[in-house]
């Protein structure tokens, strides 16, 4: 079987699990980190899909800028998700 497809399945499963964790987590800081892990899995999938241009922009945004922007916003509001 094609190793690329196996790796795609692996990373998409990781993305799915961490997307679930990000949604159900009440602590917003943890949820942001789960979301960043999910984005990193998607960056790996984009690399496997042979889109290095997208990987180069997705990786700094997913791991650096997006969690940072959200963490700054959480710092300005509340740490827990309210109902």
């Amino acid at each position: 079987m094609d190793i690329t497809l196996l790796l795609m399945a692996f990373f998409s499963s990781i993305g799915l699990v961490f997307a679930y964790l990000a949604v159900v987590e009440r602590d917003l800081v943890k949820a942001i980190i789960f979301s960043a892990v999910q984005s990193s899995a998607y960056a790996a999938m984009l690399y496997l899909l042979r889109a290095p241009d997208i990987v180069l922009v997705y990786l700094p945004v997913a791991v650096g800028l997006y969690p940072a922007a959200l963490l700054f916003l959480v710092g300005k509001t509340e740490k827990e998700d309210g109902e």
Partner: protein
Amino acid sequence: MRRHIVLVSIVLSVSALAYATTYLGALGPLGFDTRLLAKLFLVYAYNPGAPELTVMSPEAVTSIVWDFRGVDTLYETVVFYMAIVAALAIYRGIGYSSSGVRGAGLSLIVRVVTKILIPMNVAIAVSIAAHGHLTPGGGFQAGAALAVVSVLLAVVFSALSFGKLGVSLARAVALRSAGLLTIAAVVLAPVAFGVATGIRGFLMQNYVKLDSPLAFPTHVSGQLISGTLIWLNLAEFFAVSFGFFVIFMLLSLREDVVREQLGEEHEH
């Protein structure tokens, strides 16, 4: 209860998408052959034999982004510019002073590791921008990579470090504007040159066209620079990275100081 709802909706939507994309063929015919459109781009991206159709860049994605559909990218840059303008408008009149920021930063170990990482980060960002017409990457990718430095500075060394490095809000805005002005200059240069000399020139023209002999230089001392692409990539690099610098400098201000300075306006 909430966990169950999330779990069930994820399982349902993933199953539906998996079924639609495999058994129902929702993505259309997928083959292993390269499609005609892709073949055209690959043939004409770097093709000195067809000068009026080529971009003179072996990187097909950058060729598409800054030439074949260059005006799209120009407007995307304008959208990003407007987003930064909106952020500056929200924080209008707020002085970026040392009193408005938290001065703590993280531990010594993190600081030393980050000090080693930041020069590497800058080098990689510059290389992504300067090689954008040769290898995967380009202005926006490089700008996003350099913007991570602003996050590292704000989080690891505290927002005070911007001032220590000589990066003020006004300077970041000026560098971002310089990038945008360079893009505008490159876009308008063929038209201006055409008006001055009486030769027909087009907006964003990169290389010769059937009815216009104007072309940006494609080589400098034997090195391929692909006409407008290297200038647009470098200018976009400045516009995007310092745009992000502005955003993160504003976000790293303490909320109580911001509210105090905006003051009465927010209470109405």
